[in-house]
């Protein structure tokens, strides 16, 4: 049956430059380039091109050019090309339209409407190259007050502290499970986290046993609805345990790792039979209410003898502030909010593009609610979903986040070009696939260095901006809305963000 789908990309080859080395053919898992030796020419299957630019980047003579084919149909603002293509796909298959990565719809990106402050005259800006500029942050529950005893004039801490985990930079790699991403990609994240003194999140796919000695100390392990790979050793080897309730890219629904991706290694790590589908149900089937969540939180704390903070990750939805408050009262030490632009390995397009709310608004209202209730110190707030740059990260902190999860940005640093085809398992960059031919394209030694560089670059930029604001510790910016101003926003948006307009 014809699928009546037009190609999404146009592939052009400059014949005078092409040396017939056939790199493009070998690199493309979608079989776009086919070389006919007898005719000595390439044939193109443009329809299969996803625009990942792998062939373009690797072509030694720069002979290839891949660009989007946009306006094939009659231009129509309502019935856009995307909408029509999706209808045709569904007409052909009767299925759910799948997609990967984060929401690409033009919802307002509030980061781009928030501007930072800087010092002039009345307080000096600080040069981070000359003065210390502190970014260490502790994730976990803080007490209301401290008891301090004095003996012989020496002060001594008398309170018992809840477990807190330091990160050298308030940037943490988001949950990306082994299975969703490849082993080299997973390992690269772990290596970079270890090297830079931050954390990586295992996602719900477990943590391979042989990685635990070296990397468990910088791991956040997830306990999600599928409970893959969860056992006592897994929980006890981590720094933080995260209960995953929801994901910004697909709030309210679960996940599905197809059986063909469940290799021996992944089966072992997830503790499921090889080749079986790994299904994560939409809810956690032991959590149907807030008191159930509380029981799981304390079950995990009991299992780890109260030595680790427990985080609860939720998708940013309409009443996120009230939910977050309940989560803190239920005993969570960290609340992670994942906004509508958060990424995913696979999600129904309709859900990804239409469910949830932007992180910025959710974060500001959660922070405000927790303060109004006087419980902000009882938890750390992590912001996730669509943090693209150091500027987004620092604005998230100024809006009230303790730390920032970065997922998509890390993938891009590893090579991802956001082709949105993560769900096909044919990632030419070796990131979101289990095909050994593709995954060996990533060398963790090199890829982790790219991630380290990314964190280093961001931390320099954050330090410069902090110094410009006249503060030398990140905590002085946390929740400090005085240093943010909005531009081009409506009044209700400014109200929700709790930020004044520029010039106000």
């Amino acid at each position, binding site marked *: 049956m014809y699928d009546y789908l037009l190609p999404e990309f146009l592939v052009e080859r400059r014949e005078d430059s092409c040396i017939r080395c056939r790199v493009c053919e070998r690199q493309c898992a979608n079989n776009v380039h086919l070389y006919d030796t007898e005719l000595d020419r390439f044939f193109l299957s443009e329809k299969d091109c996803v625009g990942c630019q792998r062939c373009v980047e690797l072509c030694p003579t720069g002979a290839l050019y891949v660009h989007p084919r946009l306006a094939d149909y009659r231009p129509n603002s309502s019935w856009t090309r995307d909408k029509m293509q999706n209808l045709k796909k569904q007409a052909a298959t009767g299925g759910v339209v799948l997609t990967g990565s984060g929401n690409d719809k033009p919802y307002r990106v509030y980061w781009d409407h928030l501007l930072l402050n800087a010092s002039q005259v009345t307080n000096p800006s600080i040069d981070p190259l000359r003065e210390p500029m502190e970014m260490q942050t502790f994730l976990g529950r803080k007490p209301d007050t401290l008891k*301090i005893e004095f003996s012989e004039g020496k002060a001594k801490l008398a309170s018992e502290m809840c477990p807190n985990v330091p990160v050298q930079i308030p940037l943490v790699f988001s949950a990306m499970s082994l299975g969703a991403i490849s082993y080299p990609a997973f390992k690269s994240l772990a290596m970079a986290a270890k090297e830079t003194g931050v954390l990586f999140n295992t996602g719900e796919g477990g943590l391979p046993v042989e990685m635990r000695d070296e990397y468990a100390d910088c791991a956040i392990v997830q306990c999600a609805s599928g409970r893959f790979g969860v056992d006592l050793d897994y929980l006890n080897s981590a720094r933080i345990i995260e209960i995953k309730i929801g994901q910004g890219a697909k709030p309210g629904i679960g996940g599905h790792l197809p059986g063909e991706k469940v290799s021996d290694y992944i089966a072992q790590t997830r503790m499921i039979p090889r080749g079986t589908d790994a299904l994560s149900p939409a809810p956690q089937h032991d959590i149907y209410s807030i008191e159930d969540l509380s029981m799981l939180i304390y079950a995990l704390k009991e299992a780890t003898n109260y030595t680790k903070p427990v985080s609860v990750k939720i998708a940013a939805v309409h009443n996120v502030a009230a939910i977050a408050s309940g989560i803190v009262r239920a005993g969570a030490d960290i609340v992670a909010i994942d906004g509508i632009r958060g990424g995913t390995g696979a999600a129904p397009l309709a859900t990804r593009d239409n469910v949830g709310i932007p992180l910025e608004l959710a974060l500001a209202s959660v922070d405000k609610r927790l303060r109004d209730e006087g419980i902000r110190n009882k938890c750390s707030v992590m912001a996730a979903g669509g943090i693209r740059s150091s500027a987004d990260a620092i604005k998230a902190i100024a809006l009230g986040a303790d730390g920032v999860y970065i997922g998509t940005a890390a993938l891009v640093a590893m090579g991802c070009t956001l082709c949105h085809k993560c769900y096909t398992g044919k990632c030419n960059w070796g990131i979101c696939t289990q095909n050994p031919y593709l995954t060996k394209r990533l060398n963790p030694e090199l890829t982790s260095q790219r991630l380290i560089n990314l964190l280093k670059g961001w931390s320099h930029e954050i330090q410069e901006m902090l110094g410009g604001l006249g503060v030398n510790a990140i905590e002085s910016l946390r929740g400090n809305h005085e240093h943010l101003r909005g531009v081009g926003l409506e009044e209700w948006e400014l109200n929700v963000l709790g930020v004044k307009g520029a010039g106000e």
Partner: protein
Amino acid sequence: MLVQKYYQNERFVPDKEMDACGLFGVMHTGGVRFGGQMAIDAIKNMKVRGSGLGGGFAIYGLYPKYKDYYALHIIYQNKNLAAKKVVEAFLKKHFYVIFDEEIPTNPDIRLFAPPLSWRYFVAPQKSSAEEDVPDDEYVISKVMHLNSEIEDAYVFSSGKDVGVFKGVGFPEEIADYFMLDKLYEGYIWTVHSRFPTNTPGWWGGAHPLSILDWTVVHNGEISSYGANRRFLEMHNYYCTLHTDTEVLAYAVDLLMRRQGLPIEVVAKIFAPPMWDAIRHMNDNDKELYTALRMTYAPLLMNGPFTVIVAHHNEMIGLTDRIRLRPITAGAKGELVFLSSEEAAIHAVCPDLELAWTPPGGEPVVVRLHTKDHLQSLNKSI
């Protein structure tokens, strides 16, 4: 000046005021009371640090005759007698007023819009419902009510045996106006000269700011103001004067009075050691300082500041942790000085025995009948 007020949205919280200032404090550690000449001459010596838009004095050991009673200094803006009537009716209902009088002023000194200033010596008169409320909390709540509910009336100070005199003008003009050099003696004098950059002066905005017997004078701009303010709001302190000094005053009240932490610890909350320094401490200190920074991170006062905090028996000088604003300490016999500039100390005490500059974040704690202030001498730069 505690005023409880809730803004529906943070967008509507007014901008904070910015100012730079001159500070001076002098204390007799033997508790001997002395006149105001030194404080006045010292602040005069630092005239360029003020702009005539605010000056004020706090004096401890001021009213020995009434030292068991709360001394309320209340001003009535625009000499509003109607406000005075309302205030006095309120005082009569909630306090025993032992004695009251107009604060004497010198009519020859012309200042910008001087208010009517009155002082009341009072003891709490609690209703049966409020019997369990401690005296201090009781007085604070009533002072808050007066400040927020009665227009044109402001309580400048409310402690026992202490008083604040302040207004719009250079501090020496304020001193002349209230005749501080002639009428009063105390064992601690702190004084402030103000250089606001974005607001005209008003009498309530001058320093010192005070709650009970706590007073704060401050120089600098706290860049972490928003973070500090939001944390204090969680503890029901609502900042309405929008000066940095206000967050400092409330933070001092929260940590020292309500949570009972000593100033040596509080100084390490406002101006904590760097993480790098903490890493090199012994285990006991590492644990303590890590917990302090973690727990009280929102009370780190970031940006340039110097502050002189005083209450009975104690005067404390502190500068920010990278010493972006100056403070100098000096001592002669039992007199201990804190000042924005060393020259001001020499001007009033030519035969000074010691002068030192404490490092950033290291408090100079001057305590009655002790030599605690010398602890910072060993660490001076």
